[in-house]
């Protein structure tokens, strides 16, 4: 019946208009909701099968304004931007830690060298010596703070990394959930809900910020996601957890891994490595190293004199050490084998002792097959006696049993003939439990292939037993050298070795004539103490150029890294802003547009209501006529 039809048509218009107003109201309500896409109502004629004429209007679907192209651009840019921003945050922290170029550690370093200069010029001035000890302490403190803060940053990176991986896995789970929802909608014969699609896109965007991912959107709206490293994250309605060991290829995770493996590691290694020499100066009291190499450049022994800055405080004990005992009570000989092991000889150090040590090395005996304890024969793996305990007498005779001709101090002594020395000759083999991850040669010995410096641990004072050796090993493991080696093990090898080299360069004295110390002046007075202090200070001054240039380079590198990253961040931010504007243009809610829509819908609603009113009056007229 035509009259009823009018009412039905008007009712459908009222319902459709109200539905459209709901969508408009929803748009207005979500105008500032991040990631919300404006929704619109698709309406259509209600056509009855085979019917003729109008049948009203209905909501065909509610769709969102979205562009897959824009969403893909958002994800790509977000990945790069998040990476640059994360990197920038940490680089900014490092930059801040370093402070002004002429303040902080640089200033302390200047003060330190100024004090060293004072002592080099006037070693007899106690105030200057005390000043130097204070400045060493200051440098050490500042270095320790910097080191601790860099360590703290590294801890933060690790903690953040864990959080990021957890969040990635949560998002994967949520995406699998949206896939399920989309499939349910489709299964019920509906289009996928715009809200679900928005949720999907927002999750993908967040995921892209955390890691560089490959997104594959299916025709039905579900999505499959893989990390760029190939690990599946979401396949249909199934999520796979990203392992904590997976390397990030971009985004925040990529930046954190870049920090750990590259930027932060480089800066930390640079700071730790190049400045470690300062720490060494302060912790080891700037021992002097005397080294002798053979014609092939192989280091034969290292002599460490625990004088140097230790002697700055010329109290009775140190004076006695240096003068009365002729500097020998605190010295030792370290023989470094080609395999990297240190054999340390006991005190006192004499030229003959040195000769014997050099000779031992020159025999070509591999230290890895030698082990000795005081009072026992020294044998190799085959049981051949190299040094007989019986020949190590209190009078100090060393007997070698392998004939060889070795140049020592320009002479050509024939080994195999007992060589007289003035002190007992004792050998110690220092073994380590593979602190540097070296190749295991068996029997507790390890080989390495580079030319890293070896152990220069504490001085030997008495014949060593196995227990003593263990104690020394334990002491070594708590020493700064051990910390440095541990650093090597952690991957900072090159820089730290360089730093160690720096230390040695700073302090190395190659003049073998120094072994003739203490010098005696013409009047017979032993007056080497101040000279030793001055020499130690001058050795430090000789190495300052390297330390200062390292410091300068470090300052430049830190700033340059930050500025370069800032430039990338600015560009990406600009791109991101542009893309967000584009998205707003397509998917954003315009209040004016919604207001106009509401006016339009209001008019439509009023029109439909008027139709109902007219139809109602028409029915009233008809009923009245009846």
């Amino acid at each position, binding site marked *: 019946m035509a009259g009823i039809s009018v009412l039905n048509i008007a009712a459908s218009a009222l319902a459709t208009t109200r539905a459209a107003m709901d969508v408009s109201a929803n748009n207005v309500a979500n*105008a*500032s909701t991040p990631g919300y896409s*404006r929704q619109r109502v698709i309406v259509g004629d209600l056509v009855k099968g085979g019917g003729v004429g109008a049948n009203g209007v209905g909501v065909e679907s509610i769709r969102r304004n979205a562009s897959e192209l824009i969403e893909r651009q958002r994800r790509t840019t977000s990945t790069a931007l998040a990476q640059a921003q994360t990197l920038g945050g940490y*680089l*900014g922290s490092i*930059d*801040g830690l*370093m*402070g*002004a*170029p*002429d303040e902080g550690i*640089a200033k302390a370093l*200047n003060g330190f*060298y*100024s004090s060293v*200069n*004072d002592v*080099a*010029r*006037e*070693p*007899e001035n106690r105030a200057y010596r005390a000043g130097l000890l204070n400045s060493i302490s200051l440098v050490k403190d500042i270095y320790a703070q910097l080191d601790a803060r860099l360590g703290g940053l590294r801890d933060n990176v690790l903690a953040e990394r864990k959080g990021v991986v957890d969040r990635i896995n949560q998002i994967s789970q949520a995406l699998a959930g949206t896939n399920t929802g989309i499939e349910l909608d489709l299964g019920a014969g509906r289009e996928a809900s715009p809200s679900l699609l928005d949720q999907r896109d927002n999750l993908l965007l967040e995921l892209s910020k955390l890691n560089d991912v490959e997104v594959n959107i299916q025709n039905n709206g579900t999505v499959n996601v893989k990390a760029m490293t190939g690990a599946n994250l979401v396949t249909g309605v199934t999520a796979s957890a990203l392992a904590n060991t997976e390397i990030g290829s971009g985004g925040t995770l990529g930046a954190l891994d870049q920090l750990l493996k590259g930027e932060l590691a480089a800066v930390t290694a640079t700071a730790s490595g190049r400045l470690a020499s300062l720490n060494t100066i302060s912790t080891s009291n700037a021992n002097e190293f005397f080294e002798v190499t053979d014609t092939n450049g192989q280091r034969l022994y290292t002599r460490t004199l625990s004088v140097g800055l230790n002697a700055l405080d010329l109290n009775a004990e140190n004076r006695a050490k240096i003068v009365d005992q002729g500097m020998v009570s605190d010295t030792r000989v370290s023989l470094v084998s080609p395999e990297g092991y240190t054999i340390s000889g006991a005190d006192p150090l004499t030229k003959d002792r040195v000769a014997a040590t050099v000779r031992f090395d020159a025999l070509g005996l591999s230290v890895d097959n030698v082990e000795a304890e005081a009072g026992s024969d020294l044998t190799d793996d085959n049981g051949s006696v190299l040094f007989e305990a019986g020949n190590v007498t209190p009078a100090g005779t060393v007997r070698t049993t392998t004939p060889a001709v070795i140049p020592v101090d320009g002479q050509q002594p024939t080994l195999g003939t007992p060589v007289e020395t003035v002190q007992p000759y004792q050998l110690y083999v220092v073994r380590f439990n593979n602190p540097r991850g070296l190749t295991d040669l068996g029997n507790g010995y390890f080989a390495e292939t580079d030319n890293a410096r070896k152990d220069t641990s504490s001085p030997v004072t008495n014949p060593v037993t196995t227990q003593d050796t263990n104690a020394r090993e334990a002491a070594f493991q708590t020493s700064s050298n051990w910390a440095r080696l541990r650093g090597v093990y952690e991957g900072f090898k090159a820089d730290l070795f360089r730093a160690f080299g720096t230390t040695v360069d700073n302090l190395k004295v190659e003049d073998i004539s120094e072994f003739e110390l203490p010098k005696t*002046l*013409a*009047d017979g*007075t032993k*007056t080497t*103490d*101040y*000279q030793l202090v*001055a020499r130690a200070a001058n050795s430090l*001054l000789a190495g300052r150029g390297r330390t*200062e240039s390292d*410091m*300068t*380079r470090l*300052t*430049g590198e*830190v*700033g*340059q890294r*930050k*500025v370069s990253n800032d430039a990338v961040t600015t560009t990406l931010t600009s791109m991101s*802003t542009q893309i*967000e*504007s584009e998205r*707003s*243009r397509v*998917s*954003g*809610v*315009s*209040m*004016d*547009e919604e*207001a*106009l829509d*509401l*006016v339009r819908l209001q008019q439509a609603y009023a029109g439909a209501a008027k139709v109902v009113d007219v139809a109602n009056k028409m029915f009233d007229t008809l009923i009245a006529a009846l």
Partner: protein
Amino acid sequence: MTRVAFDSSYRTATDQLGIAASRLQTSQEQLGSGRRVMKSSDDPIAAPKILQLSTSLGRMDEYDNNLNFAEERLSKLSDHLSRIGDLLGNLKELSVQGINGTYSAQDRAAMRTSAQSTLDVINGFVAAIDEGQFGVDRTTLVSDGTKMPISLTSTDLAALKGLSADLGVLIKNRPADDPDDPDAAQIEPLSTAAGWKSLLAKINNELDLTTDSSALVMGVRYGAQYQQVDKIRDTRGALRLDTQRVVSNLRDADIGAVAIALSRDKTVLENLQASFARIQGMSLFSFLR
């Protein structure tokens, strides 16, 4: 027609307000600290240069300290050596008189006493120069690559001690044989004209300006080094001023420029805030009844 979404204006305003506020903060920091480079990222090209030049300035201070010390020591050395030269001149006059045969034994005894006193004073100066445990051959760096002595060389010290010993033999009375025998005969070198002659020969040799080991020549040598001090100081003074100027140019902020930037940034921020406030009040909803 371009659609303008509701959140676009907010986002734009937030971004621009952030940038403007950040610029304002930078200007404020520079104005407050007077520095343009507060961390290395502020100017990664200038930062290492600032550090390098600051280190150079520190080193100049050290060199100045060394130079002051060297000046003091060289002045003292030169003075002592010059005094020894004067005393040798006195001894020479005495020797010339001693050779003269007209003097009585009593006169000679008086001259001998005078010569011994002079020798004691010379020995005192030699002892003052000899720094004992502080060593010899000491130098200090007064500029890059330039060292200046702050003690005698071991050769010079040996020559002075040799002079002291030689003069002792020529001047001082001593036992002939057994030093423990109070009755042993005494050698009195200056009791005869021949003794004075030997002394004169020694002194003439010592005053020979062609001999490097002569105290006078030594005095001139150390004095010449002393004369270099002012020249080094003047040169470094100019270098220091120039270095300080370069550091300041690199590191310090141009206060005028920063003040203008601050004013500009403040105006920009205020305008941004005002325009945002104006725009966000505009809405078609206000007109719906």
